[in-house]
């Protein structure tokens, strides 16, 4: 049985339906990310789990019990906010002890627990400071220690890294994941940053228009996006449309030539479908070779690799390759052929 079950959740604000028919099951100790663009409903789902919003329909069950009738302060759910939300009138230690004091834990137990939490986030030396005396990263560490100090059943993270600068963000996401693993706490993480979601999660829920567009492991989401939206949202992807053809092998007849397919994807010959190919899966080869034919429009040096912008009919395809793989004959305005291994061609369902 799943530890948390979200069943057919729906929520509207006035005439706008923000979450529709949302289903998700989290196992105990699992780290699941809700990923999507602004306004896709991910934060609303999180707030419904926290008890700050009531769903219009559906159910939220934790350990088999519906929590819809419980208020936010009765759900035993720890939460970390984007804006840290530390209490400005309390010191670091007092902030971490807040939940323990509210739960009327004996004073003799509070101090060691607070020390343990602050040790865990590496801020034991700063326990007498006030929030304004800490950096953003330090404040978020305190917020994390505060959220887990009273041993909640579930940890909710609402874009906790988005207010931090890039370097600290990368360091802190590793720390958060390590602490989550150490405590074994079931965690729901909201982010719009695909890199964060891919690097931290056991599973990712890609949301669009209030629905779960795809649920899967980071590898599944990245390598086998189910829909055009997921494909476009996760990483950079070339979407190629054309008609399925079959001779000795299946292929896609599209602007610029033919692209070999691993199969017909259950499509009949002549049916129009869309496939996706990552820029690093397209390989440039001499113009006279087979595959897709196009014109190199732009060459971008991006440090670790070089990105070619190739126009094939109306479409522009992106091709990432290492400098050493670039043939000397490739010039801006010149012809080029592109091929891809059939296993790297992905069928998009919608």
């Amino acid at each position, binding site marked *: 049985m799943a530890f948390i079950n979200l069943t057919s959740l729906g929520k509207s604000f006035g005439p706008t339906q923000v979450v529709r028919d949302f289903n998700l099951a989290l196992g105990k100790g699992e780290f699941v990310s809700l990923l999507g663009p602004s306004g896709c409903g991910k934060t609303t789902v999180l707030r419904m789990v926290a008890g700050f919003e009531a769903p219009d329909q559906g159910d939220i069950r934790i350990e088999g019990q519906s929590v819809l009738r419980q208020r936010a302060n009765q759900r035993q759910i720890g939460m970390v906010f984007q804006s840290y939300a530390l209490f400005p009138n309390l010191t670091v230690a007092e902030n971490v002890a*807040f939940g323990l004091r509210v739960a009327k834990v004996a004073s003799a137990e509070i101090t060691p627990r607070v020390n343990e939490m602050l040790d865990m986030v590496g801020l034991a030396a700063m326990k007498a400071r006030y929030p304004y005396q800490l950096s953003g990263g330090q404040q978020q560490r305190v*917020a994390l220690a505060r*959220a887990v100090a009273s041993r909640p059943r579930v940890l909710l993270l609402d874009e906790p890294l988005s207010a931090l600068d890039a370097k600290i963000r990368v360091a802190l996401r590793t720390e958060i994941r390590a602490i989550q693993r150490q405590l074994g706490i079931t965690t729901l993480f909201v982010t719009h940053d695909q890199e964060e979601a891919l690097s931290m999660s056991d599973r990712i829920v890609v949301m669009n228009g209030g629905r779960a567009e795809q649920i899967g492991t980071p590898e599944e989401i990245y390598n086998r996006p189910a829909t055009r939206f997921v494909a476009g949202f996760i990483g950079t992807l070339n979407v190629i449309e054309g008609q399925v053809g079959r001779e000795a092998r299946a292929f896609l007849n599209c602007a610029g030539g033919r692209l070999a397919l691993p199969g017909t994807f259950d499509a009949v010959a002549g049916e129009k479908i869309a496939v996706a190919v990552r820029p690093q899966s397209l390989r440039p080869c001499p113009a006279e070779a087979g595959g897709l034919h196009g014109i190199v429009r732009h060459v971008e040096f991006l440090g670790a690799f070089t990105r070619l912008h190739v126009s094939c009919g109306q479409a522009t395809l992106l091709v990432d390759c290492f400098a050493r793989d670039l043939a000397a004959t490739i010039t801006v305005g010149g012809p080029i052929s592109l091929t891809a291994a059939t296993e790297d061609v992905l069928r998009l369902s919608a």
Partner: protein
Amino acid sequence: MNLKRIGSWAIFSFAVLYFLLPLVGTIEFSLRARRGVYSFDAYRSVLEDSQFQQTLAYSVILSIATVILGVLIVAPTAFWVRLKMPRLRPVVEFITLLPLVIPPIIIVFGYIRLFNTSSILPLTGSARGTDFLLAAGYATLALPYMYRAIDTGLRAIDVRTLTEAAQSLGAGWVTVLARVILPNIAVAILSGAFLTFAIVIGEYVIAALLNRPAFGPYMVWMGSNRAYEPAALAVIAFSMTWASMGVIQFLARRTRFTKV
């Protein structure tokens, strides 16, 4: 010095004279009780008057009661409006402004009609009951100032997120208010409290019509019966107000958990 700068200085000087001259005149007049020399006789006379001490003590106690009543009414209301009903804010602001346009005499006559000795709740029948009515009247008069002070304090903090953070840590509404919201708007409450204090100390109509021994009626009585003492009393009242303002500034700077 260009013309613009001269103009600014001229306006500033005029404002200083406009506000300071009457004060200097009052102080100077209060020192003339003894013929031919300046003395503190008027101040001595006022401070030694047992009625001064009694009425001031009564008004100070009542102002503390008024502040407590005002904070108990206004803080949860302003908090709730900001958190749950932001669309009602203009309505609540309008209601809190009503005491500025409804004269105190209407409030006090309303009280006397509603709570007289032949009513269901005969509060005017006892001294404590009348004291409560007086505190309620003062709290109403102070409402515009107390509400704005507290609302400004709430605007300076992220009420929603702090409340949700406290709730997620298990806190109920009373704990959220008492341990998170109120400590973080303490300076705003203090500034509302001192404005309330200033109103209570000088208020005449409600105290006189409810027949309570407050400082306001005493000042009016003094003004109509003595010559130099009213000026001394005015200077003392000014000093108390300024001292209050100084305390607000001092406490605001001493707040440990905010940057200065």
